[in-house]
């Protein structure tokens, strides 16, 4: 089986190339193929991996321009493997996730205070069960066309994480959390659904953003972009 892998190195000088590898494996995951190449053919091939079972979020890459976890994708003849987009590449398939992770800090993705003695029902727990499955693999940032042009956009996984806390009955700081995501946040999303299509955990950040929008509306926040267009807060049209 042949695969093509995009290689990138910065030392001794910057070089990029798409290299082809022949691997004798059947019905193998991409991670197994990468391991086979690294241990038997080319020890310099660089990629990240961890659990091999799709929960640690280390091995996200793009195959034929679509984001996947290497450990959860079965390789096809001729596949083109590339690093994630919209993130600095350090080497080959390894990217620097620091900035993506930092959006969690900016979006304040935590419970505002320690809760005490609040009974959480099955119904309460189900409300954010799927959002709390997120593994921070970064596939959604790679696929997001808004983040591609606005690097301050809080982005899909951080906003899903905000909904995960805002929707939790134990959260006592909902208003501040909602206020914090108005700028470069929920209103910048175009609802294109690209994040949903690539999420290995079946999470839809797009629909979480929609929920955050309606929560915002309930609390009296307005679409900041729409505000700019309409001019003033008195509702009178500018044109």
């Amino acid at each position, binding site marked *: 089986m042949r695969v093509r892998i995009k290689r990138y190195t910065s*030392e001794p000088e910057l070089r990029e190339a798409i290299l082809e590898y022949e691997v004798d494996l059947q019905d193998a995951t991409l991670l197994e193929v990468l391991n086979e190449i690294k241990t038997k053919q080319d020890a310099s091939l660089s990629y990240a991996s961890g659990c091999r079972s799709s929960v640690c979020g280390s091995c996200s890459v793009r195959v034929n321009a679509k984001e996947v976890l290497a450990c959860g994708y079965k390789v096809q003849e001729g596949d083109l493997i590339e690093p994630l987009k919209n993130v600095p590449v350090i080497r080959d398939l390894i990217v620097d996730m620091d900035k993506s992770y930092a959006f969690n800090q900016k979006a304040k993705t935590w419970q505002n205070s320690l809760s005490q003695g609040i009974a959480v029902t099955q119904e309460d727990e189900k409300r954010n069960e799927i959002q709390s499955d997120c593994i921070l693999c970064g596939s959604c940032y790679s696929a997001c066309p808004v983040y591609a042009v606005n690097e301050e956009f809080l982005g899909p996984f951080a906003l899903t994480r905000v909904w995960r806390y805002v929707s939790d009955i134990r959260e006592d700081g909902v208003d501040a959390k909602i206020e914090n995501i108005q700028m470069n946040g929920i209103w910048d999303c175009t609802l294109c659904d690209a994040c949903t299509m690539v999420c290995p955990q079946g999470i839809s950040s797009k629909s979480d953003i929609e929920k955050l929008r309606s929560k915002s509306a309930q609390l009296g926040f307005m679409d900041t972009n729409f505000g700019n267009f309409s001019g003033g807060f008195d509702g009178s049209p500018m044109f």
Partner: protein
Amino acid sequence: MRSDVLIIGAGGAGLVAALHAHEAGVKVRVITKDYPTRSQTSMAQGGINAAFGNVGKDSVEAHVQNTLKSAHGLANEEAVRLLCEEAPRAVEWLDSIGVPFSRTKDAKIAQRTLGGASAPRACYAQDYTGLKILHTLYDRCLACGIEILNERYLLNFISNKDEYEKPYACGATVLNMRTGEVESYESASVIVATGGYSRIFAKHSTNAVGTTGDGIAAAIRAGARLSDMEFIQFHPTALKNSSILISESARGAGGYLVNSKGERFTNELAPRDEVARAIHNEIEKGEDVFLDIRHLGEAFINEELPQERKLARLYENVDPVYDLIPVKPVAHYTMGGIEVDKNSSSKLRGLYAAGECANHKVHGANRLGGNSLLELVVFGRQAGENAAAYAKKFTHTIDASLQIKSAQNFIMGVKYFTNQIDFYQKREFMGNIFYNNAGISRDEMGLKAVLGAVRQIQKELPFMGPKDKSKVHNTNLIEFIEFGNMVELSEIILVCAISRNESRGAHFRADLPNENDRAYKAHTITWKEDSVLCADFME
């Protein structure tokens, strides 16, 4: 760059320690060879034990007795009592920071039965318990503004000597994986939270690829003692081809183990060592072994075991709703680790340890399912608080210059190793001989043969080395250093396993199948004197 407390490892234990040290009012820095949330903790599925009795009658005493029984006489009862008494508070704390546990109909934390437990005691979040705990801990660290530095690989702990020539830990030398440069992080105290060493078994392990015992190897090099390194738990049910874990909760919920003839052959909910051996015996007889959860029904499987269904479909091409799941036992958890006292302090002053890398003597010869997530909360907290208290009183000077130089020389030198022998082949070979001769069933001949091979590999290390000589994110180099750590620990495991002339819990000697309390109801302690390995049995 100095902090009060330096924590190596950003898994569950490291993050719990960081939160509690931070709360004690000291400056905390966490370093990890990966990113927080990517650690082994994310893979824990079954649950975290606490005797709430939310689902069936339970008591702290029952939790204590189950833990002691599973430990086969090798646990410290005082430590076990602390673990079990603190368990409800530990889980309530997790609940208070927002962990989304599954719930009962009457709005309590849901609990289920794992092997060796007399009651449904494991609190869970579907089968993503570890993932959800770990991510919530990470979010809490963000809330507290705790500094976490990613992609820093531990080389060695820094120690200095006081005016009485007594050593104390005061930081660590680290390889910055992104730049390829050696860095040093100085601190008043250090907490090791680097996880276990199951990857010695290579592909015969459920563990993440980074579970290579780096912190434990660095600790014994720095003067700490290790204990009970021969005790390695085999999880009964990993997928046959990929060694990926299928949670014990599948059996807790009523799953059966059957052989090729469709016959059940063991009590599925006995402690892990017994079930693993029963499966091993069937496989030795030439049988294939399967986990059967079809009778639980699709609705139940989707609700309680969604990850298991996904993993079995992806990695074994079977759907547990309709098919048998082929399984085998593989290395899962290492009971042995850095010997610590009741303050989580190692023998090296200022060096603390928590989580799988530490041996708090609560698991003894065989860990009970649901007690590992629990230990990282209870002892992570203890390590964090004590390391912080120690740091506040710390008045010594720190001089890391010698150790920085030696780390730089090591990184420089290792790249000039001659590369005549492929270490990836040796790594695979070592995993195979460990699994076959130092695994579920051991005997003196086999263990000695493996020890001979490991000592040979030690001699050959200078003829191995990384093929890749570059500086930026050299994973080939990191994997070689990890391999070096595993080789160092392998010798210790084998020496301990050869010395323990009995069977106890996970250490099963086919040539000596009985427990011998008179001679061996004691901990196997190992340490190094002038780089020479020493071992003894101690109370």
